[in-house]
């Protein structure tokens, strides 16, 4: 199931979602060896940041709620990681965030010099008061970030969007116009809150957190469906994908690649190969290829 994505050939369409398993080479390499076509690093920010206190990640049964809070060593404190990643034999997406257009640009420029295969800008994280999501719900701020970053980097640019945008397709179109080479959708949903009724307190230290996993899949599928209609650049579809059938559904909505995050909780790191195999089996049983089914849910009356 080798697949072409922008300038690269990937061994299959599965992508490790940002924020899952961090950004050290050893573990990312293991994810790659466990069957992942393209790995995304945890979002890298402008300054060292501890993120929130625990509890930060809770399993709700049909998915997770998390408010990790964008912990990051800060883009200038990752020389070890970059040095090790230089000698990799697998493709990576470096994810970044900032608190202003200029911070996005600065981080992106530096990270670009480290030659990741792609840069993804996270304009969609709900778990920090200062960072991220604000940009992705508004057309003007999305445009400003994307064009500034695009000018500063020499690798293809992916923009990661939030389902909290009142019209995600419109934001995607704006990003495409501003120079995005691909869209990644979606980041976590909500935010939500879980209150422990015995202690009468929100369980997460940050109180609110983003939802991921099976419960958000219908929202992710709808977003990818809407975005696919609106843009002509490829879409990485993610949100709740746990099985090969989920991945096929996302491709039918219009995804080129399928991102996987929370499913690592439910099926282990092996989930990448499992999903790739399940997709392949499903397709070959029906004599279909990925290209045949991409965006198939958009076709009427066949």
């Amino acid at each position, binding site marked *: 199931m080798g697949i072409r994505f922008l300038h690269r050939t990937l061994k299959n369409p599965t992508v490790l979602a940002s*924020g*899952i*398993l*961090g*950004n*050290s080479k*050893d*573990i990312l*390499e*293991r994810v790659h060896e466990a069957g992942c076509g393209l790995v995304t690093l*945890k979002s890298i920010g402008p300054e*060292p*940041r*501890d*993120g929130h*206190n*625990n*509890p*930060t*990640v*809770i*399993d*709700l*049964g*049909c998915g*997770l709620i*998390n408010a*990790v809070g964008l*912990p*990051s*060593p*800060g883009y200038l*404190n*990752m020389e*070890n*990681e970059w040095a090790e990643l230089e000698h990799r034999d697998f493709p990576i997406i470096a994810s970044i965030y900032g608190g202003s257009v200029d911070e996005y640009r600065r981080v992106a420029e530096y990270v670009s010099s480290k030659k990741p295969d792609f840069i993804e800008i996270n304009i969609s994280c709900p778990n920090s008061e200062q960072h991220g999501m604000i940009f992705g719900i508004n057309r003007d701020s999305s445009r400003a970030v994307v064009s500034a970053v695009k000018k500063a980097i020499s690798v293809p640019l992916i923009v990661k969007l939030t389902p909290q945008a009142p019209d995600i397709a419109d934001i995607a179109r704006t990003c495409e116009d501003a120079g995005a080479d691909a869209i990644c959708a979606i980041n976590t949903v909500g935010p939500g809150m*879980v209150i*422990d009724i*015995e*202690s009468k*307190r929100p*369980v997460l*230290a940050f109180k609110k957190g983003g939802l991921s996993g*099976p419960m958000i899949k219908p929202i992710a599928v709808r977003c990818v469906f809407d975005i696919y209609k609106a843009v002509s650049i490829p879409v990485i579809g993610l949100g709740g994908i*746990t*099985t090969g*059938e989920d991945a096929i559904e996302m491709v039918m909505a219009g995804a080129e690649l399928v991102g996987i*995050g*929370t499913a*690592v*909780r*439910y*099926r*282990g*790191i092996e989930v990448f190969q499992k999903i790739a195999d399940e997709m392949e089996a499903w397709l070959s049983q029906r004599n279909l290829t990925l290209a045949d089914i991409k965006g198939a849910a958009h076709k009427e009356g066949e």
Partner: protein
Amino acid sequence: MMTKPVMDQKPLMLRVTENKREAPDYATLFFDHSLAFRPGQFVMVWIPGLDEKPYTISHHGPHRFGITIEAKGVFSRKAIALTKGDLVGIRGPFGNGFDIQFSQRSAVVAGGCGMAPLATLVEQLPGDTTLIHGARSKDAILFPDRFALAREICTDDGSLGHKGLVTDLLERRITDGGSLDMVYACGPEIMMYKVFQLCETHGIPCQVSLERYMRCGFGVCGACVCGKQVVCKDGPVFGSEALREMKDFNKKALLKSGREVDLSLYFSWRCR
């Protein structure tokens, strides 16, 4: 097609049933609740309004379990001050636990609070298992009367047993008592590293229980990654084979920010 699992793992709110002071800086909190469990596994312990941290299960019965805490920082000091009736949130158990070999010739090596994960293991091992326990001083020897089997003790200050390191005693045991089939160890990482080296020299398989900063506890967030291993999920117990490949063992750890640093920096950070 697999079906999607449903495991609601919000913190289970339990009340402390008993707080047993084990030593000046150590206490065991007991909870009356039954928990499926293997020795070496841990739970995430939430003190509402404060933080949530991983603790090994040090006591386990059909309707009761306990965790033993060493007061070090803000959280653990607050934890050992909890009293009967206080509410605590428990998630887990998580991790793999020890791969127990019921051999007659095994040794258990504990350093300080490292006795906590080993205690329930010791209770399952045969009576002639070698048990080596080191601590700062006599005061800090956990569970002095708990086990049927004899314990070889060493302290940093010589206030009890051998004055020196657990590795001295382990080496003596190997040289004088004949080889071992398995060594289980938990304690400061430098100690576990030395145990591992000693075992490698003598061709003895060993299992050690690692400790890293943790968030999710179930292998997703990446906070606890050590080399190719995810400590909360693949570990916390690792055998010789994994340790040989683990280039960060006794070398590197991630801070809360995800920054990779030398282990010494990691421990001094944890000191704040």
